[in-house]
């Protein structure tokens, strides 16, 4: 039985706008009390540190422990886009065990076999094996009939359906959003309506099926309006975004920077500002890293031949702390977006600092300055479009289930 007493820190409690000075006690891996010192406890000094729930990263493409440790991620929902695809119970069971004990991986089950979008995968068996949700993967499912059947099935199993929203016909072989930048560079591009169109269909299917649908990345003004309407109607929907679309617009691809090739592609500045507004007004429920480390074999290529994706785990917290400093949201809201809401969507008993919960905690120095450097990242690859930018916010300690996780 390990007793830990974290002293001199500020604890971010659920519902509070900001962290308050108090001590926090951990007993047998669980949060046991606040402000009641216990005998024989190991003391952890958190002077000048913010004690927050460990980040729950909804939708990563790789289990990348060093990067998650750096970024303060204690749990990650792993996308089914693996090799082999996570479309059967065995692969799900394996993935769920892979990170333990210091990282909990919550696998997402492929909605269709081989993620091909045609035949339903064994969703119920995968749920029993540990899947916490069902995902369409990197792609949209074009067949509306299949999509409706998946949603109905998942509604019955009480599993969230995590969807990628890009109408495949409109997207075609596009690698960028229709824009002057894409035209200047001669890159194939698609209208941003590609996303709204896919979301419009899936909202109707969500209404039809009663399923909980989570739109993993919503990145345009029009899409966000549709989400607002759907929420106003009372649909069981939620949506997320990654820092790429919050802090970069499509002029980041100038000079054919493949690190800024994302899926969906970066949008123009007005859409980016609409995303920030949707963070402020609560339309967006989740901020995730979309962590997708890609080495030179995938990125040191001509732009349209490069794979999309960014290594985002290490920079997620530091970048999103900007939203607090810019007074767009409070610290309390930030950790709802990073931990509480992802846990709620995935049905996990985690994501808040409350008595009886697993002590998944990060001790953050929110002001510690550092510079993002793609050559010195702990991730499997350094493909960040935020290379060389200065940021603030560093995780000093991370506890998973009451145990200190070392790098």
């Amino acid at each position, binding site marked *: 039985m390990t007793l830990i007493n974290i002293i001199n820190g500020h604890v971010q409690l659920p519902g509070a706008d900001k962290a308050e000075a108090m001590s926090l006690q951990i007993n047998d891996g669980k949060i046991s009390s606040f402000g009641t010192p216990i005998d024989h406890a190991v003391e952890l000094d958190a002077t000048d540190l913010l004690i927050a729930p460990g980040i729950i990263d909804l939708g990563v493409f790789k289990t990348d422990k060093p990067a998650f440790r750096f970024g303060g991620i204690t749990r990650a929902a792993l996308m089914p886009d693996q090799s082999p695809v996570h479309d059967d119970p065995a692969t799900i069971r394996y993935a769920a065990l892979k990170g333990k004990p210091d990282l909990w991986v919550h696998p997402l089950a492929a909605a269709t076999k081989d993620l091909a979008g045609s035949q339903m995968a064994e969703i119920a068996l995968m749920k029993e094996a540990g899947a916490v949700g069902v995902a369409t993967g990197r792609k949209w499912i074009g067949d509306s009939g299949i999509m409706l059947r998946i949603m109905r099935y998942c509604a019955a199993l009480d599993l969230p359906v995590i969807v990628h929203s890009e109408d495949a016909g409109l997207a075609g072989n596009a690698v960028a959003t229709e824009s002057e930048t894409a035209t200047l560079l001669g890159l194939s591009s698609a209208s941003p309506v590609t996303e709204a169109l896919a979301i419009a269909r899936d909202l109707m299917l969500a209404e039809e099926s009663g399923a909980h649908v989570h739109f993993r990345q919503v990145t345009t003004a029009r899409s966000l309006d549709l989400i607002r309407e759907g929420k106003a109607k009372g649909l069981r929907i939620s949506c997320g975004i990654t820092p790429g679309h919050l802090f970069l617009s499509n002029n980041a691809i100038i000079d*054919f920077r493949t690190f800024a090739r994302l899926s969906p592609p970066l949008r123009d500045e007005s859409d980016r500002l609409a995303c920030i507004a949707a963070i402020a007004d609560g339309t967006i429920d989740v901020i995730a890293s979309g962590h997708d480390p890609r080495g030179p074999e995938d990125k040191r290529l001509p732009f349209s031949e490069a794979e999309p994706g960014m290594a985002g785990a290490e920079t997620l917290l530091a970048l999103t702390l900007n939203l607090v400093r810019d007074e767009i949201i409070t610290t309390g809201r930030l950790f709802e977006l990073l931990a509480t809401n992802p846990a709620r969507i995935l049905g996990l008993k985690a994501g808040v600092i409350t008595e009886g919960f697993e002590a998944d905690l990060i001790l953050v120095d929110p002001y510690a300055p550092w510079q993002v450097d793609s050559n010195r990242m702990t991730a499997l690859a350094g493909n960040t479009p935020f290379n060389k930018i200065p940021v603030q916010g560093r995780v000093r300690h991370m506890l998973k289930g009451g145990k200190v996780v070392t790098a």
Partner: protein
Amino acid sequence: MTWTHNFAADSFPTGSDAFQHKHLLGISSLQKWEILYILKEAEHWVALNRSGPAKHDGRLSGMTIINAFFENSTRTLLSFEIAGKRLGADVVNMHAAQSSVKKGETLIDTAMTLNAMRADAIVIRHASSGAVQLISGKVDCPVLNAGDGSHEHPTQALLDALTIMRRKGAVEGQIVVICGDVLHSRVARSNIFCLKSLGAEVRVVAPPALMPYGIAAFGAQTFSNFDDALPGADVVMMLRLQNERMQGDFIPSPREYYHLFGLDERRLALAKPDALVMHPGPMNRGVEIASNVADHIERSAITEQVEMGVAVRMACLDILTRKSRGVEGWA
């Protein structure tokens, strides 16, 4: 018409060489005076090329130029090869079809290989936008873009500008109509940048599915009706329509395309009486251009474009290798 464009003494900046780029990757990164400098230099090579059987200048003697063509080409490759040889360089051609690219080697590895062979200039054509810029960052010698995807084809725009200058006396003030598959055309992009930079009025005509987004931001007027764009035109530049885009994805059929966007005598009559007809080649006769228009002895400048191509490429190879050759004022 003869060469009448004057270069004022202040056309070029003082105190440094006239072309400070290591590579020639695109027109969009060039200043007006840099474009004019290349054209002025090319004029010299036009004269040499017409001077008789001994068209040889040995200034690149001993240098190795690699033409690395990852996409098929006949005329551009030949034009670069002749340009290099007339300047005395050893020119070798690498075709993608017979290279290790087919065996799965990455573009960067191929570039490193070419670099290790100590080329003095590499000319690259590639089907992907940005591929040439990517290679240019990995090699030591100057890189010339011979066309990358839908991005840029700078030497084509330069030879077009030279053709217009020689035939019309100047590019400034000319009304140039560019018609065809602008969306996928690197020729159109480079030409828009070049012509706008030199002060021409550019009108762009394309079927809606083949008109790129936001092209007006680059200073071109856009039209979907060819007839509306032609009145007052000094130059009509037709673009090649790729075969694979004729089968219903972008346009219904070659026949319908010709009906709306083909340049025939009736349409040409809408332009100025002395309007020039241009085409980067190879032409699809009867798809984008009528044979009698293409072959029109006074109006068509299509073969002259090919001639200017060699001169412009000689100028580019000469200018970009001056630093390594230690030419006075350039080293």
